[in-house]
């Protein structure tokens, strides 16, 4: 188990990263980057932010495989749904 002080430092450190990544995301939009690359970057950044919150604030880093599965399976499932619907919905026009 981490010491108490390390825990506090880590929580605040994560917050600093979250704010920094928010700024980075906004910066990407200001840069003259091709649209697709910009989108990939900002969603990549968003994923990192989410992972930081999920792993550190929601303690998924320390949880059992079962809880991780409960969190992960729905995500995979709706991504699967999205992919299955691409031919019909996204390409319909």
């Amino acid at each position, binding site marked *: 188990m981490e010491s108490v002080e390390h825990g506090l430092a880590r929580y605040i450190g994560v917050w600093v990263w979250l704010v920094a990544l928010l700024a980075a995301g906004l910066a990407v939009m200001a840069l003259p980057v091709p649209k697709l690359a910009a989108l990939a970057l900002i969603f990549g950044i968003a994923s990192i932010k989410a992972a930081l919150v999920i792993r550190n604030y929601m303690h998924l880093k320390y949880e059992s495989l079962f809880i991780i599965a409960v969190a992960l399976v*729905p995500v995979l499932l709706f991504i*699967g749904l999205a992919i299955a*619907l691409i*031919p*019909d*919905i996204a390409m*319909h026009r």
Partner: protein
Amino acid sequence: MAEQVHAQGIAGSQIESHHELGFLRRYIFSVDHKTIAKQYLSLSLFMAIVGGFTAYLIRWQLAWPETSVAGWGYVEPDGYNAIVTMHGTIMVFFVAMPMLLGAFGNFLIPLMVGAGDMAFPRLNAFSFWTLFTASMVLLASFFVPGGPAAAGWTSYAPLSDNPLYTGVNWGINLWIIAVALEFASFLMGGVNFLTTALNMRARGMTLWRMPLMVWMEIIAAVVFLLSVGPLVAGAVMLLLDRTIGTGFFAPDRGGDPLLWQHLFWFFGHPEVYVVALPGFGVMMEVMPVFSRKPIFGYRTIVTSVIAAGLLSFIVWAHHMFVSGMDPRLATPFSITTILISVPFAIMVFAMIATLWRGSISLKTPMLFALGGLASFMLGGVTGIFLGSAAVDIYLHGTYFVVAHFHYTLFPTVFFGGFAGLYYWYPKMFGRMMNETLGQIHFVLTFVCFNAVFIPLFLTGLAGNPRRIYETTAYEFLKPVQPLHVIATIATIVLLLGQFPFIANFVVSMFRGARAPQNPWQANTLEWQTDSPPPHGNFRTIPVVFRGPYDYTVPAAAQDWAPQSQSDREIGLAAAGG
């Protein structure tokens, strides 16, 4: 570190202490899972009567169009659409789910795993009252101007998307709200089922010693939980389309009606397995007891059910083969649909193997379980026809589909449900039901059910479309009209044949013989406590030594071996049997 309140401790602290509770707290707002189960059961039986009556109206109209229905009056075409819609909605969402999950799941899961109550008793009560509210909203929709929902239980856009198209305004809005509340209710209930079964099992009750009923209930809960989300999103979108005029599913406003179908069936298909699995669970509990044999292939069954649960998420577009969706999706979905028949076939074979050379006792629960198994096979086989896209092009939207799903749902929900009710009635109410009335009920139900739906396969093959008000308006259907008459007469007898059950159910509660603890000489834990179980279920929480199906263990003193009795107690010479 904050003290983690141990699971059993929580159950103990949340079980009402043994002081006198007022009428309201004890019967109406009870947090005891057994009482809540009975509340779900009462609701589902009441809604079954309403749903059954809609079936009567539908069948009368089909057999004798242009006549006034006895005991009701003339059915208008718009009214017919509403009746068909409400029949489906009530039966799936307000009969099948409350009875099989709400009643049986709630009553049995804590008892079968050896717990004193559910993990979250107050959430449990709240989930029932949410369903009650949903039912009231749905019943209210019968009385609003414009009448109740009339776009089918599937509520396809664009028909459902704009009140102008159906002429029904608040009816469908209330329908959406009622169904959304029902979803919320079972999401809350599902959390309870899963947590209790995983976390509050008695000592010695490993996952592989859980009765199959518990497995079915928790797998159903998981499948429901994971599939309903996108439809909740879709329901909000539909409600917004109808009320404020957004255009999510409206082609004239840039929306996509097909999106609704995808969202609906992504949930709708796993939903039918959610409803079917507990029915199988009942059969798998009843058959070993009444053949005095262990269930055949316990682990195989569990694996198959999990496989079926997983597969159920990737078959949904078989409802949409002719919808205009991308044709390239047809082949993969045909393949997955035909694949999903494999785990169900395995389960059917396992049940047959369980019966094989058993010492069969044809008590009412067993009759219904056998009847359910036999009938389901016809439903399963006809599903293969419909799962092949090429054949489905002809059969989609015909009575062949109607007969197919009644042959899968009715055996699991009603035959399974009746089997469960006759089987667990002594435990729930402390009385025995009348066996003769039960057998009469079975014969009438089984014969008439088949007499209703076999003709409908035939009319479907002849091209009879679903959801139409008057088949005699079509020349090519005139030859099959006698089949509709047969089906309707059988329906009327079927519905009348439920009266022996209702009478039996009500009268036995007051006049039935007092039930012993274990009238069926069964192994599972609910039979090792009083009928009905006391508050807290067990005087001392049992310890579990064996699986649930140790019937006719060689060298044991008797042909059954309760889960809570060790080898020595059942008469085996040395521990290590």
